[in-house]
C-alpha cells in the first residue's frame, strides 16, 4: 500500500529506473562508458530544450519554434559574422564549406540571434496578441525559411575552428560530458529560481491566472516576454552544443526536437495552460526520454517506432497527470466540464 503511494509520487523516477532496467535487459553493453556518455549528452540536449519549453509553458504560453531555432541560429550567426567581416574588408571566413572564425565569435552571435528570436516571439505573442500556437508556428516557418535562404541548404563544417569541440565533445574531469555538467548547472539554477525566489512566484502566478496576477500588480506581459527570451537563450546554448558535438552546422537537419521538448514537459506534468508543474520533474522527464531513446535505438526500433512509443507515453502520462488533477478538483467539489 505504501509502495503504491511512493510509486505514484515518484512516478518519473520509477519510469527512469524501469527504463534503465529494460535497457540493461536488452543491451548487455548498457552501462558501458560510451553508452552512458550518449545518454548524458542526449539528456543535456533534451533537458535544456525541455527547460526552455517548460518555462514558457509555466507562464501559460507555448513555443514551437525552439527546435528549428536551435539549428538555424548557429548558421545565421556564422553567415552574419562572415557578412560583417567582408563589409569590414576582411576575407571570406567560410571557405569550401569550412568555417574559419573564432569559436567565441560564433558563440556570441548565436546567443545573440537566438535571444533576439526569443524577443520577437515574445513581442508577437504578448504585444501582438497573436495566439502563441499560431505565432510560434509562424516563426518556425519563417526561421526555417530564412535559414534555408541564407545557407542554401548546404552544411558548414566546424572542424577547422579551434576549441569548437570542447562544448559538445569534451569531458568534465574526464568523467562526465561537459555539456551534461553545464545542463545540470542550468537546471539547478532554474529549479532554484522557480521554487525558492520571487522570480518563481511571479512566473507561477502569471501562468496560473494571468488576470489575478495582473491585479496583484505583476507585470504579466513583461514576465511572459522574459520567459520567451530565456527560452531563446537556452535554445541558443543547445544549438551551440549541437554544432560542437556534430562538428557541423546543417540547417536541413529535421529536428522535431520541439515535439520532444513538449513531450517531456507533458510527461513531467507541466500544465499546458500554465502555472502547474515543477522543473525538477522536467529534468527527470528529460532523463527518462534520453534513456528511452537510447533503449529504443539499441533494440533496433526505427524512427517511426520511436515516434509511436513517444506518442503513447505522451498520452499515457497526460492521462495519468490529468486523473490525479481531476481527483484533486473533485475533492474541492469543482465539477469539470
Amino acid at each position, binding site marked *: 500500500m505504501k509502495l503504491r503511494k511512493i510509486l505514484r509520487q515518484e512516478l518519473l523516477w520509477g519510469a527512469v529506473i524501469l527504463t534503465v532496467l529494460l535497457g540493461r535487459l536488452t543491451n548487455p553493453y548498457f552501462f558501458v562508458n560510451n553508452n552512458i556518455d550518449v545518454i548524458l549528452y542526449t539528456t543535456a540536449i533534451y533537458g535544456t530544450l525541455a527547460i526552455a519549453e517548460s518555462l514558457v509553458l509555466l507562464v501559460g504560453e507555448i513555443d514551437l519554434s525552439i527546435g528549428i531555432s536551435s539549428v538555424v541560429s548557429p548558421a545565421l550567426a556564422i553567415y552574419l559574422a562572415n557578412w560583417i567581416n567582408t563589409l569590414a574588408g576582411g576575407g571570406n571566413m567560410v571557405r569550401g564549406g569550412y568555417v574559419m572564425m573564432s569559436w567565441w565569435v560564433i558563440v556570441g552571435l548565436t546567443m545573440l540571434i537566438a535571444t533576439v528570436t526569443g524577443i520577437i516571439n515574445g513581442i508577437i505573442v504578448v504585444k501582438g496578441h497573436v495566439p502563441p500556437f499560431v505565432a510560434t508556428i509562424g516563426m518556425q516557418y519563417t526561421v526555417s525559411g530564412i535559414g534555408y535562404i541564407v545557407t542554401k541548404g548546404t552544411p558548414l563544417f566546424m572542424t577547422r575552428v579551434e576549441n569548437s569541440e570542447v562544448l559538445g565533445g569534451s569531458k568534465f574531469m574526464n568523467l562526465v560530458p561537459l555539456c551534461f555538467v553545464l545542463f545540470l548547472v542550468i537546471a539547478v539554477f532554474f529549479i532554484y529560481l522557480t521554487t525558492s525566489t520571487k522570480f518563481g512566484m511571479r512566473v507561477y502566478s502569471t501562468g496560473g491566472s494571468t488576470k489575478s496576477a495582473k491585479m496583484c500588480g505583476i507585470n504579466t506581459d513583461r514576465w511572459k516576454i522574459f520567459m520567451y527570451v530565456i527560452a531563446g537563450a537556452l535554445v541558443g546554448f543547445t544549438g551551440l552544443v549541437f554544432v560542437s558535438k556534430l562538428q557541423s552546422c546543417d540547417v536541413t537537419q529535421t529536428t522535431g526536437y520541439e515535439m520532444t521538448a513538449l513531450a517531456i514537459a507533458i510527461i513531467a506534468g507541466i500544465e499546458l495552460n500554465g502555472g502547474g508543474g515543477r522543473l525538477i520533474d522536467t529534468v527527470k522527464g528529460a532523463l527518462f526520454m534520453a534513456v528511452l531513446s537510447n533503449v529504443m535505438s539499441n533494440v533496433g526500433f526505427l524512427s517511426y517506432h520511436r515516434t509511436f512509443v513517444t506518442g503513447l507515453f*505522451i498520452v499515457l502520462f497526460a492521462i495519468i497527470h490529468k486523473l490525479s488533477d481531476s481527483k484533486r478538483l473533485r475533492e474541492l467539489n469543482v465539477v469539470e466540464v
Partner: protein
Amino acid sequence: MRKGTGQIKRVYQDLAEKTQGLLISFLILAVLLIISAVFIPKVFQLKNLENMLRTYAPGGIVAAGLSLVILTGEIDVSVGTIMTLSMAVAAKLYDINEPLTIVAILATGLFTGFLNGILITRTKVPSLMLTIGMSSVYGGLASILVKAQKKYITEVYSLTNLLAKGSILGIPIPLFVCVFSAIAFEFMLRKTAFGKRIYYTGMNKRASWMSGVNINRIKVICFTVCGLLSAVAALLLSGQLGSATVQLGDGYDVTAISISVLGGISLSGGVGTLVGTLLGFVTISLMQNMMAIAGLGNYVSITLKGVMIILVVFLYGLSARKRT
C-alpha cells in the same frame, strides 16, 4: 474629431459588416489577386486554376473538418497523421477490393476522429496535448503497418482515380467535395440547432453545459467528422499523387489550421464561419500557386507563409479587440 475620420470609420464598419467580419480575408485575397494579375498573369489561365484548386483541395477538405473542431473550442493536430493512417490501412487492402478499401479509409478516419473525441471528453485532457500525442501514435502505427514503404496507386484502382482526377461539369471532384462540405457545414452552423450549439460550446463551455447543451456529444461528433474528412482528403490526395507514403499527411495539420485562421476562425473557439474557411482556402491555394509559378523556390515560400500567418492573425486580433 475631424469630419473626415468619422466617415472613413463608417465606410470601414460598413464594409466589415457587409463581408460579415471577413474583411481582412477579402483584402488579403484582393491583394494577392492584384499582385498575380500584374506580375504573374499565368495564374489566371483556366487550366492552371483548375489544377491549382484540385491540388490544394485536400487541404481545404481537412480545414473544413478542422474548423468545426476549432469552433467547439478544441483543436486537433493529428489530422495529418489520420490521413497517413487511413492510406496505410488502405495500402493493405487495395489489392483485395477497391470499394471495400474506400470504405475502410473512411472508417479509419471516422474511428480515429471518434477516438480523439472520446479521449478528450472523457479524460478532460487538454486537446492540444492529447492530439499531439495521438498524432505520433497514429503516425507510428501507419509506418508500422506499411513498414515505411510506398504504395503506388495505379490506374488499376479505377474508382480512386476517378474520384481524385475526375471532374463534374468541369469542376474537379476534390474541389467539389471541398466546397460542398464547407457550404453544407455553414448551412448546418447557421440554420440548425446543432450548429448553434457548436457555437455555444465554443464561446462558453461552462455556460452551455449548464444550459443543457450536451457539449461532450457535440465535441465527439465534431472530432469524428474532422477525422472522416481527413480520410476523404487523404484518399483524394493520394489518388492525385499516384502514391501513398508515410509522409502523406505531413504539414497538413499546420496548413489546415492556417486556412481556418485565415478565414477568421478564432483558436479560442466560438468565432468564425466556414465561408471564411473557404475564403482562406482560396487565399492559401492562390498564394502557394503564385509562388510555385513565380519560381520562388520552396524556402521563400515557407518564409512567406510563416509571415503571412502571423500577420493575418494579428490583424484579426486587432479588429476583434477594436470591436470590444
